[in-house]
């Protein structure tokens, strides 16, 4: 008779109570696994949305280029073509999207509203980014030199602009004077974040270059990788490759360029971390209570075991094994429950309301997030071990004579 088998039999002796205890562990584990899966899915979704909003997985800028808000007179990325060629040597790089970022005023001749502009190469942009796919009316930009813009729906609304209208873009040019160019509104796009939607303007690189007098230079290169994971490592690798080639630039992964994403992640970790702690405390209190009851009922038996030579340390070990068995069984069943609930939720078609600052809701989807399952198992193991420790300590310390006469 191993101690594990003995512990299993003790667990099975009061089936109703064991089922209740197990139920608490199963639901505790499933809650942690599902909440973690939901958090992971939400963060992945937000991350992907951030990347596909135009940021790419990493960006290349001239030295100090990440410190300003966009194009500055006399600044820009020298040798874009050579840099792009070097970048393409990295097998992780899928696409390189040039960017000429600027700010200015958009006018219909009667009113002017500020915008955050970005000059893009429309064709590769359309294949990699979300904006071209989120056209609400009109169309996306056709080619690099088209004299047209796409406006965020909020920006278009504030100006009363529609697809096909003519607008004027005003911005500070290379020589420091205010330049203006006319363009057609090719389309209106729904951007995922309201703040961006209210200010977004995409122009062709040709139009932006004319407006700014940039002389063919761009402010940044957005790099799209085959997959989002490993962006930071790819960034370091690419920066080293460029440095070895004598190209002095800065490279940053998307997370470093996305303060909103970082804030949301911190918020989520705080919320779900707090929920996790509450869950663990509830499981601890519920299981400790039932395990103490179970131990109290076995006081006389513990006295017998100790009387016939079972060491106090072994008595503690017996109870701890019961806690561990409950944690393992509860986690296994909890994992099954979590996977089942996940299956139901992911096929339910439910949609969540837009996140703070967002303009679009998202379908409810829960990942099978291995880290959450592992965290749930560890949490249940630690919790049940703690819950078992209290009766284990009591059982190993109670005077034998007192235990033998316990009623």
């Amino acid at each position: 008779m191993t101690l594990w088998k003995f512990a299993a039999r003790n667990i099975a002796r009061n089936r109703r109570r064991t089922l209740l205890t197990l139920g608490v562990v199963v639901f505790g584990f499933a809650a942690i696994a599902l909440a973690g899966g939901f958090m992971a899915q939400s963060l992945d979704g937000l991350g992907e949305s951030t990347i596909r909003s135009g940021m790419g997985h990493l960006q290349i800028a001239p030295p100090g280029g990440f410190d300003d808000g966009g194009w500055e007179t006399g600044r820009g990325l020298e040798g874009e073509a050579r840099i792009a060629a070097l970048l393409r040597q990295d097998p992780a790089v899928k696409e390189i999207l040039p960017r000429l970022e600027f700010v200015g005023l958009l006018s219909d001749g009667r009113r002017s509203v500020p915008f955050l502009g970005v000059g893009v190469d429309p064709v590769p942009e359309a294949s990699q980014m979300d904006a071209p796919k989120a056209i609400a009316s009109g169309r996306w930009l056709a080619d690099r030199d088209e004299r047209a813009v796409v406006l965020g729906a909020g920006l278009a609304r504030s100006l009363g602009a529609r697809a096909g209208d003519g607008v004027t873009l005003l911005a500070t040019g290379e020589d420091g004077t205010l330049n203006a160019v006319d363009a057609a509104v090719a389309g209106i796009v729904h951007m995922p974040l309201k703040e961006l939607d209210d200010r977004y303007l995409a122009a062709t690189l040709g139009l932006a270059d004319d407006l700014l007098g940039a002389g063919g230079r761009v402010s940044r290169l957005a790099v799209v990788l085959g997959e989002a994971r490993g962006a930071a490592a790819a960034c370091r690798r690419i920066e080293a490759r460029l440095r070895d080639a004598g190209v002095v630039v800065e490279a940053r992964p998307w997370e470093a360029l996305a303060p909103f994403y970082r804030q949301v992640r911190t918020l989520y970790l705080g919320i779900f971390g707090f929920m996790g702690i509450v869950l663990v405390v509830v499981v601890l209190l519920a299981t400790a209570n039932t395990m103490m009851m179970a131990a109290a009922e076995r006081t006389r038996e513990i006295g017998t075991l100790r009387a016939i030579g079972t060491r106090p340390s072994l008595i503690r070990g017996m109870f701890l094994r019961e806690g561990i068995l409950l944690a393992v069984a509860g986690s296994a069943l909890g994992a099954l429950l979590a996977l089942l609930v996940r299956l139901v939720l992911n096929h339910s078609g439910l949609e969540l309301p837009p996140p703070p600052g967002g303009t679009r809701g998202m379908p409810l989807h829960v990942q099978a997030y291995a880290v959450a399952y592992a965290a749930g198992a560890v949490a249940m193991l630690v919790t049940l071990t703690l819950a078992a420790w209290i009766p284990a300590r009591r059982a190993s310390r109670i005077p034998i004579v007192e235990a033998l006469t316990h009623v």
Partner: protein
Amino acid sequence: MTAPTPILRAERLTRTYRIGDAPVAALRDVNLDLAPADFLVVQGPSGSGKTTLINLLGLLDRPDGGRVILEGRPVGDLGEEARADLRRDRIGFVFQTFSLVPVLTAAENVAWPMALKGLGEAEAMRRSRTLLERVGLAARADVRPDLLSGGERQRVAIARALANEPPLVLADEPTAHLDSEAAETILDLMADLNRERGTAFLVATHDPRVVARARRRLALRDGRFEGEGRAA
């Protein structure tokens, strides 16, 4: 010719409990020697201190005064783990209420002390079945205690007490919850084992059937021995 070293010696054992604020002396300056292969019955009415004596001699409790010497070795300073090891290896217990572990079968109950000593499961179970056969319960080896009669349970308890072949068995009212027939069976068994194996028995009881079987008996009253009597 020198007398054999007592397997168990009690010197001026004293144990006082507190009931509320009042001290109650359960044992007062009790002296006792138990020789190897002895069969000593300590008789006395309820409350005379028999169970307290068994508890102290069996290292289940610690005296307020005096000392216990087991096989020539004082045990008062030993820690809980060392005392547990001594109980496992050198002392067998038979309790009034059988005290079997309900989730273990009869054979597993008997094998438990052997497993504690480090014997492999298979060997422990083999020896356990041999012991159960000796106490006449071979056919009930795989039955759990709740399906055994009182007499059968006590026979399992005796087999368990002998599991690690201790030189000493302490029995506290072993026949108290048994009918006459079962009690006689248990007494026969203890007497046979005492004779066959040379195991010393110290039995605390107020059952006249047990007293009648004693080779040596001591009467305990109000925590003191009244005088030693020897059976004919």
